[in-house]
């Protein structure tokens, strides 16, 4: 049974790769385009910090380190949750009906039927570059324990963002279209998360900690590794909560999905 599941995941992945490589040049260019689009944001910060030296005590390399987690987690997350990102379209064009007609789990199919490798390579690649540039220059003496902490943090960050995507996808069942909600609650919040959250107004901080908890994707884990002064205003425990919040949020989003799927209405012919 486990073997069979792995087999079908393998065939799905092979199919996705084959489809991507139908357009080889486009595949390379598109990954590059994503990389460059995201990199421009970093370049702006680079020039700003050349002038100001630091932002609330964070220097350029520390900022890059903060950013790298955001990109790395997104790069991995999008490999698994492309189907959730595009779920609105899947519902509208009737492809979801086809998922229902196949003897496999619905969420399983949504997750493994599609993977946006362009975004994964673009975001993940940028994250990796930023990590390699900064990891040796932020004063972290890496050891096995810290590396483990870092990996678990990435997994937690992936789950936090996956849960947000799953939650927004589930809303599609009720609303048919949730792109503007995603713009508002995901992408805009993510823009804030590129900076140490301590620079923002309390209300924005509260949003990033309690509502769309991007702070746990990169800010608090970075604080565990870097111990900057501005951590003083937050509870210590926040630095250890990322994996738990990830698992918890995903579980809640999954229950919401399970509950909502019975209200699914086919889009009609």
């Amino acid at each position, binding site marked *: 049974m486990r073997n069979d599941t792995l087999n079908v995941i393998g*065939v799905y992945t092979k199919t996705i790769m084959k*489809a991507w490589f139908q357009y080889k040049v486009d595949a390379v260019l598109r990954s590059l385009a994503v990389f460059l689009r995201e990199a421009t944001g970093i370049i702006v910060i680079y020039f700003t910090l050349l002038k100001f030296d630091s932002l609330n005590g964070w220097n350029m390399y520390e900022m890059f380190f903060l950013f790298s987690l955001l990109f790395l987690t997104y790069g991995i997350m999008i490999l698994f949750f492309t189907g959730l990102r595009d779920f609105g379209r899947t519902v509208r064009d009737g492809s979801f009906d086809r998922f229902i007609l196949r003897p496999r789990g619905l969420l399983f199919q949504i997750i493994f039927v599609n993977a946006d490798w362009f975004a994964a390579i673009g975001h993940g690649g940028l994250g990796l570059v930023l990590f390699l540039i900064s990891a040796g220059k932020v004063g972290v003496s890496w050891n096995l324990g810290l590396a483990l902490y870092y990996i678990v943090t990435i997994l937690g960050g992936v789950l936090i963002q996956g849960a947000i995507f799953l939650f927004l996808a589930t809303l599609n069942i009720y609303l048919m279209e949730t792109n503007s909600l995603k713009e508002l609650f995901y992408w805009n919040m993510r823009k804030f998360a590129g900076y140490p959250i301590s620079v923002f107004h309390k209300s924005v901080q509260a949003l990033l900690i309690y509502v769309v908890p991007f702070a746990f994707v990169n800010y608090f884990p970075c604080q565990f590794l870097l111990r900057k002064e501005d951590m003083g205003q937050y509870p210590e425990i926040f630095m250890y909560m990322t994996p738990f919040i990830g698992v918890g949020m995903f579980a809640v989003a999954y229950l919401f999905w399970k509950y909502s799927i019975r209200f699914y209405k*086919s889009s009609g012919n």
Partner: protein
Amino acid sequence: MSLIEVNNISKSYRINKRPKGIPGMLANLFVPKYEMRQAVKEVSFQIEKGDMVGFIGPNGAGKSTTIKMLSGILYPDKGEIKVNGYVPYKQRKEYVGSIGVVFGQKSQLQWDLPVIDSFELLKAIYRIPEEKYRKNLDRFVQMLDMGNFLQQPVRQLSLGQRMRADIVAALLHSPEIVFFDEPTIGVDVVGKETIRNFIKELNAEDEVTMLFTTHDMQDIEKVCEKLIVIDKGEKIYDGSLLGIREKYGTTRQLDVEFAGIEHIAPIANVEMVELDELDGRKKRFVFENKQVQINDLMNFLLQNYRVRDISISEPEIEGIIRKIYNGEVITT
């Protein structure tokens, strides 16, 4: 107990009613008004194993909704469905392995990849054993003459080729029941014939039970033995193809070719149609069975005019169905 049991199912959709104009749009944004539209009203029917049933009705009659409920995509609001011992919308994963569904309007093939890649994917999804997969694939490819485009990307196929590939895709796992939703839409005459023959052969050889919707009455006449007609969500006919002719086919027609150009005076209760606009030699007489005796009409024509040829034709199913849709025939 029948293979497919449908008991009094109903399904309504909630439709957002938008008032006209910009004020209406704004009002709708804050206080949306909904209206329930009943797509299917207390429909019941049974289908036996090996049956080949045509499921027809005008656009918006509720055909697709019914097919979607039968295949487990939609929950009925009321009533029960049992297919092959399963309740489709409750036991989805167990159930869907035993059915195949073809949506003529919506392909399930991978657009950018060769046809064969989609088949390989389905083999994994449905856990089809290698031997069975080979056997089915070889057989279907041969029956539908698909050998020459199996390696071509789907996007390069003609509509007819794509439809054949889609039909095979729905059958690779040897389903016991197949729902076809407009399997010949947009396909040319030759392609339609290929598809019909294939469906017939499969039904005869493998005893596959089939239900299919179409707007092409030729499909029905050539393929189906049983017919279910629905209109405005309600079932209005359920029986044999022959039966519908007997029950509603009350008109007859007489095609007459005259020896010369004749001017024919109007005949009571008989509608006359010119078949040959050029010289008016060929005419069709259409009449109600009950009102006009065919013998009387023939005798009248033969006695009063010079007739070269005469033929009686049965009413076409298409004509009957059109009348039912138009409400010209009262059904009970």
